[in-house]
């Protein structure tokens, strides 16, 4: 009983212990906040990565692809059985995309992915990240009249504004086509004027001059464009659709009012050129014109700045992947989605066993393996950060150790009194151990409450800090998240709190032992 009373009284009266409590509190709160934010970021990243990538991918090692993929698909269905949820074929190749901005072509190195609009939704959440609501419901490579989101819908707040997307689609395309036609006409007129100035100076000679045009060397480009225009009308027609990663086509910046805006260099309705290696040995160079029909925003910069999706059949045709004799089309990879709860690694191993790399030119990987370095880096970051932060609590532990030694010295006579009254050594030890436990419990408890409150109000706190400091704490132009993502894992919180209490207890063991071993006579005589 006396142990509890005395440790409680020491806790209340020894203000030096407050310093130890504060350091434990801060350490615990910081660890909870950092872990929650890291878990939030990590979860978002995993979700997006997994959303884009299917569970398992069988890739062809060469660019020519797999021609007998239908047999392969049948075998995969056999091997995976009920575990298989969906399966789709994909052509995935490196490519070069360019579009015209103010008369100049802007090139981008991209990953060109030919997807089957019908089956791709079965294996990934690809559609979820598109900007047109109809495309989110059902993927289509047809250009929509308009109706693209003019702000970041996913974040739920109108933070990143996209005013340019208001009329994007056919409305924009027609407007642009008319404008370009006018421009072209006036250019042609100017060109004609410069080539036959006399014709325009003396209208009477017009007919004659028209005869003389045959002598003028023909502009091959002009001729080509005229020929093309004869069978392709951009006012009414589109090329094969392409869905671009949003960062390929836009730049995020702040408006003069300080609002985050996305400025688009090309819009749905614009045409882009894509150059890619064709199938065959050695690979040749192929080019195709596509019309931007939507943007893809996964908020994973790596994907948003490199991925471009086109219809599978179109890409196969352009690359020469369709065998003219049999009509069979090759694919470069098969993406597989498994039912939830399936052991991915085991399923992957079964496929690898059936299609060993030494016999088949396939690479079979899980989505985690495909993003291995990135996920490993995030894991490593979390571990290192936790290690460093735990040092804070360890420092607090040393604070407790020093404080306790001081208190034991200060209380030497009291220890002697207790022993003279018959208190056993372990009883005296218990006083200081329970004191350490109390310090740890109070420090961790307050730290836990503070940490959880901080996590709950983290965005408001960030706004408050921005208001106070005048500087942006969490810049959406950098992170592509509108709010700081957080996830509180009860296990993590429990471990942090238990760890802090254990450190406080451990720190009190040595001083408590010293107190227990004090000789009562020496303690009574201590001054």
């Amino acid at each position: 009983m006396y142990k509890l009373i005395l440790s409680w009284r020491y806790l209340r009266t020894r203000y030096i212990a407050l310093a130890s409590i504060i350091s434990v509190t801060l350490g615990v709160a910081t660890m909870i906040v950092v872990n929650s934010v890291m878990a939030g970021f990590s979860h978002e990243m995993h979700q997006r990565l997994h959303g884009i990538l299917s569970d398992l991918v069988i890739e062809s090692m060469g660019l020519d692809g797999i021609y007998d993929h239908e047999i392969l698909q049948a075998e995969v269905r056999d091997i995976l059985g009920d575990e298989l949820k969906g399966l789709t074929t994909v052509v995935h190749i490196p490519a070069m995309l360019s579009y015209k901005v103010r008369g100049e072509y802007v090139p981008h190195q991209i990953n060109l992915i030919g997807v089957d609009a019908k089956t791709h939704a079965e294996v990934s959440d690809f559609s979820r990240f598109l900007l047109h609501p109809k495309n989110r419901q059902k993927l289509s490579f047809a250009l929509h009249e308009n109706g693209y989101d003019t702000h970041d819908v996913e974040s739920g707040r109108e933070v990143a504004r996209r005013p340019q997307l208001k009329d994007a689609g056919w409305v924009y395309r027609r407007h642009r086509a008319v404008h370009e036609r006018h421009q072209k006409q006036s250019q042609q007129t100017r060109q004609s004027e410069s080539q036959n100035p006399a014709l325009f100076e003396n209208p009477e000679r017009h007919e004659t001059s028209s005869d003389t045009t045959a002598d003028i060397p023909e502009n091959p480009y002009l001729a080509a464009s005229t020929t093309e225009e004869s069978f392709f009308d951009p006012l009414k027609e589109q090329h094969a659709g392409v869905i671009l990663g949003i960062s390929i086509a836009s730049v995020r910046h702040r408006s003069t009012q300080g609002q985050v805006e996305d400025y688009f260099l090309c819009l749905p309705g614009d045409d882009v050129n894509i150059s890619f290696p064709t199938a065959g040995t050695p690979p040749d160079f192929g080019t195709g014109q596509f019309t931007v029909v939507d943007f893809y925003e996964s908020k994973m910069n790596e994907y948003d700045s490199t991925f471009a999706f086109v219809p599978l059949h179109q890409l196969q045709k352009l690359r020469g992947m369709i065998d003219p004799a049999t009509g069979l089309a090759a694919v470069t990879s098969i993406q597989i989605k498994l039912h939830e709860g399936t052991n991915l690694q085991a399923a992957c191993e079964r496929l690898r066993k059936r299609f060993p790399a030494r016999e088949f030119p396939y690479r079979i990987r899980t989505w985690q393996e495909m993003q291995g370095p990135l996920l490993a880096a995030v894991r490593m970051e979390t571990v290192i950060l936790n290690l460093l932060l735990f040092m804070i609590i360890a420092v607090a532990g040393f604070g407790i150790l020093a404080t306790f030694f001081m208190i034991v010295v200060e209380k030497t006579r009291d220890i002697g009194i207790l022993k003279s009254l018959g208190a056993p050594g372990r009883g005296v030890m218990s006083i200081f151990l329970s004191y350490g436990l109390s310090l740890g419990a109070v420090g961790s408890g307050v730290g836990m409450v503070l940490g959880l409150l901080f996590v709950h109000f983290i965005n408001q706190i960030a706004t408050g800090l921005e208001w106070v400091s005048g500087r942006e704490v969490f810049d959406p132009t950098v992170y592509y998240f509108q709010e700081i993502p957080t996830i509180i894992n009860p296990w993590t919180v429990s471990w942090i709190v238990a760890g802090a209490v254990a450190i406080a207890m451990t720190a009190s063991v040595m001083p408590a032992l010293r107190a227990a071993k004090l000789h009562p006579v020496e303690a009574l005589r201590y001054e």
Partner: protein
Amino acid sequence: MKECCEAEPYKLLLHLQLSPENPQPSTEMQTSNAVTHHTTNQPHHHSKQNGPHFRIAPKPAQAVGSAPPIIMSTSGLKKSYRKAQVTIPVLRDVDFSVSAGQITAIAGQSGSGKTTLLHLLATLDSPDQGEIHLHGKRIDNLPTQARDRLRNETLGMIFQFYHLLPELTTLENVLTPVMIGQSVMKYWKNWRVNLERAKTLLDLVGLSHRLEHKPRELSGGEMQRAAIARSLIRSPQLLLADEPTGNLDRQTGNEILDILRTLNEQENLTIVMVTHDLEIARQADRLVQLVEGRVEEAGTVAGSRQPDVVAKSE
């Protein structure tokens, strides 16, 4: 000492030997002494006045020749301390005994080994040589746990510097030995009885109005009275007092001595008191004088209250 104690004609100690754990008075005490306990039939009056409320009833004279039994004895006690490479002998062959129901004063100059001897008697320290017996049983070689229990249950201690725990109130300080001796469950089970007993003891030493005060809010005399109450809470068979008046002025010191004398006379409490003040020592029943770690003289104090008790010289 006698004169000052005849002032109040009514007050008696209450059931000091009747603790919840010791419902019957110590048989040894009862049988070994022809002392009448005037406890149960006396009116109990809670005086509003501060200070001790004892009435010293004259101790019945002991029959000639019936020496009180020995409660504690030492034989060949030696103790020395080492400072650097030098061994300093403190006690050299100390032989003496404590008779039940008597006040034994251990007197001597500073450095004569009085306090060391008291610490050995209290089992706070172990002798280098020699033996200490309590009720005929050797106690100096007991294991640590048994010694802790002995100090808690059988021996009471008061110190020159009171040694109250500063974090606790007067009441809590008095209850500390009970808290040490009982488990949390048992303590709470007997909480009301323990509390009543502590309050009664504090009332007897005149501190009923200081229950919730911390030691720093008490005077020296009050602190020593609280320490006496604390030493009595477990109904000890032997009270060891280390210079109980050494830090007090003469008048307050006398009040403390009155309390001890009353406890001795009315409750037959055996007291061993260490003092450097010969005047105080001479008021005891027996005087053991230490000179340079040796018992120079031990015997009945001439003119003491028990002149007919023959002291056996060690």
